[in-house]
């Protein structure tokens, strides 16, 4: 049995906002434009948790920059029964934005709704989570936005977070205002206005016209934006771009053909030419900075080995590759893959709709805990849940290798994510998994 973490550490991290250079200013409205166009901000929504949910809803645990779980709405936790039963102690004095107190019953109901296979019970000032198999990474799982605590009242989700929704036009616009009673200190901003569903070009135009303060920058435009003198804050390469097969190989021939496909793709050229070095070529599901061993999965083009594999595949049916028609970069990458495989004697037909054999996907990162991220990737790719024998790097490697050996996924790139912010936006911050932390952001008067 172990008990983890302290309240003090969380507080010290959360309150490190003062600068002698200039203390944060209160007030102002932050204007943001994003590509995502969610129909709901509810973290338990059917479409999955939007990253915008973190403005309004909070998790029991947060991961720090090293991917270590830190207390948030929970103050501590302890594992029992070989990591199959967890007791999570809740912070007192937390209220929802409608002034209702956060209690164990509400948290248990919220977690039950998000995790049908968990047994969650309220027990005094704690909740008890029981799982069918050991979950050593459960504290890190609790940091996923899909596990954020929401209380539902009249079909409306209410959170404990730093902002509350003042107006939501699904897919178009989200207006947030500061939660004056936020348990962790009212945010410095008065309001946040978020334009939803704006592609990168539209976001850039809004920024140039002075109509927005923060925009997303596509990986391929990071260097260009920096060269243009914009303040660009970019992450480590994390989002996975991969080819995903709908089904496992049905024959040895197909298995050889998939090997040939994986070896024939020139990831370096795709990263350099198409993505403008806005990512890193990879043969792994997890980026090397997260796993430490990612480099052992080959990412280079090996035409000779690919041809040998192709020769072993005596009968090969052409594949159909579907890509996101709304993303011109996806189209160019799909066309390059088509050319690469042709060099080794394989055929791919491109499609933008309908059934396909394989899809070109980009999967946003969800967790800076390698075990949880691997599990989430497997889920997003339709692969079986990884089996982790332990928590060591060797155990993680074995689990990731097993997923890759299903031959249902061919990793291509890990992409950076980036934002451009105006000079008057201070303390812009995001978590290691890319979640925006806007509660510490403050605005100064923009100098002419």
């Amino acid at each position, binding site marked *: 049995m172990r008990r983890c973490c302290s309240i003090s550490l969380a507080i*010290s991290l959360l309150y490190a906002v003062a600068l002698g250079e200039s203390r944060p200013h209160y007030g102002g409205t932050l204007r943001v434009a994003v590509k995502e166009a969610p129909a709901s901000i509810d973290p338990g929504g059917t479409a999955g948790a939007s990253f915008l949910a973190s403005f309004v809803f909070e998790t029991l645990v947060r991961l720090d920059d090293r991917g270590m779980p830190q207390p948030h709405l929970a103050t501590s936790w302890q594992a029992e029964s070989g990591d199959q039963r967890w007791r999570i102690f809740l912070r007192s004095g937390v209220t929802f934005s409608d002034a209702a107190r956060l209690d164990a019953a509400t948290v248990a109901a919220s977690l039950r709704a998000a995790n049908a296979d968990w047994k969650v019970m309220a027990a005094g000032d704690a909740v008890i989570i029981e799982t069918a198999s050991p979950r050593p990474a459960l504290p890190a799982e609790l940091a996923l936005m899909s596990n954020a605590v929401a209380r539902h009242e009249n079909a409306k989700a209410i959170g404990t977070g730093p902002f509350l929704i003042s107006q939501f036009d699904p897919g178009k616009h989200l207006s947030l205002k500061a939660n004056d009673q936020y348990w962790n200190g009212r945010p410095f901003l008065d309001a946040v206005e978020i334009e939803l569903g704006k592609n990168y070009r539209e976001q850039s135009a809004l920024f140039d016209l002075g109509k927005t303060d923060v925009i997303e920058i596509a990986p391929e435009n990071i260097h260009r934006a920096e060269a243009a003198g914009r303040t660009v804050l970019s992450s480590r390469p994390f989002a996975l771009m991969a080819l995903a097969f709908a089904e496992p190989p049905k024959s040895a021939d197909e298995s050889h053909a998939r090997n040939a496909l994986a070896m024939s793709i020139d990831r370096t050229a795709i990263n350099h030419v198409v993505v403008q070095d806005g990512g890193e070529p990879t043969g792994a599901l997890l980026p090397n900075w997260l796993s430490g061993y990612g*480099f052992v999965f080959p990412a280079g083009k090996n035409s000779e080995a690919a041809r040998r594999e192709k020769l072993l595949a005596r009968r090969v049916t052409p594949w159909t590759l579907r890509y996101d028609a709304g993303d011109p970069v996806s189209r160019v990458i799909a066309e390059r893959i088509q050319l690469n495989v042709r060099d080794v004697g394989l055929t791919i037909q491109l499609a933008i709709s309908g059934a396909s054999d394989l899809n070109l996907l980009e999967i946003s990162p969800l967790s800076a805990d390698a075990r949880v991220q691997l599990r989430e990737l497997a889920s997003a790719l339709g692969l079986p849940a990884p089996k982790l024998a332990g928590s060591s790097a060797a155990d993680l490697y074995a689990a990731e290798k097993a997923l890759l050996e299903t031959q249902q996924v061919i990793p291509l790139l890990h992409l950076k994510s980036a934002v451009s912010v105006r000079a008057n936006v201070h303390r812009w911050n995001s978590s290691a998994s890319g979640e925006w932390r806007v509660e510490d952001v403050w605005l100064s008067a923009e100098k002419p």
Partner: protein
Amino acid sequence: MFSPLARWVGFVLALCIFPQASFSADWHQLTDQLAPKITAVTGPGVVALEIENHSSISAADVEQVRSELKSALSTAGIKIWQPDQASATIRITLSENLQNYVWVAEIQQAAEERSLLIVSAPRPASSVGGQNARPLTLQATRLISRAEPILDVAVIEGNPRRLLVLGRDSVTIYEFTANRWLQGQSVAITHDKPMPRDPRGRIFLRKDHLFDLYLPGVGCRSGNAWPLTMNCTASDDPWSLAAGPLQSAPESGSLEPGLSVFFSPARNFFTGALVPGIGKQKSAPPFYSAAPVPRDKYVLWLFAGIDGQLHILDGINQQNAPKIEWGSEIASVHTACRSGWEVLATLPGDPGQDTIQVFEFPDRGPVEVSQKIELPGDLTALWAGQNSESAAAVVRNNETGNYEAMLLNLTCN
């Protein structure tokens, strides 16, 4: 006896040295894991060894790893030799992830399939070095360091000497015993409302009782004896700012016995409403901090406004000084040299690395009287001491994440 004052240079160097010392590498844990695994694959014999570093460790550490691995393999009967005379090639990549060092050994033995071994061990929390120190006459006496935020500190003379440390939710007493501050009693402070996101607080020592505490929306009054008792209530009463220097001011009759200012309870600044006022002036622009500079017949008050400007009040006139680019933290300290009153001010600089400098205010403009000093992190609090001879400062150390409370004094060259 209180610990001797350390020169700032010493203080800064100390902060730099401690994290590096704790980072001194011990690679045995990894070499002891890896060597037996390699031996189990290759058995005794002659192998070629390549080591490639993909991690943040230094070249010297890589050499240390090479030496320790060679030694461990040699003990197991494996001899390292040239590749053309070796029965196996071992390529070891020193890598890392967010929490661990990860070493990967790829072993190629003749026609056999490549074997892959992975071992890992925790990385230290920080491996970043410090910055250069500069010699200055600004002296810092480090008091305590802790993970929880510190809003203000004050030393109460006596036997034993006591240090009051104000946090968000408590005041803690430390006693100076055996040349160190030992933690003693801690008294909780209750809040009816959430504290602001950038919490501030002030300890004000009193003569008829031990002290008053000012926090956003909360006021506390201590008892007048030890052990400490304290009564806290919801309060928006004005905060005493700087009674000390004014109480010892010239007998011109123009000085106030003390100055109090209303604090905005849900924010991080003073509203500017002055009690009783500065001469005829009853208000200043909203501000983060203030510094009195006593003159012969009046006191010049400097206010670091929330508009980023310095505002100067002399009891009759108010002057804005937009060209003075100071930060939000200022405090004045009395010295036995120069003009007698120096102003400590933070300066614009890199985020996360505050800079402080000492100024005199001979007329209506500042004159630099010290070099700029880079602090080891963000300055989160700076309050003038009530003896006027020092200022209490709190820095959040970038390396450790801890809040470091210190007393700042100025000495004459």
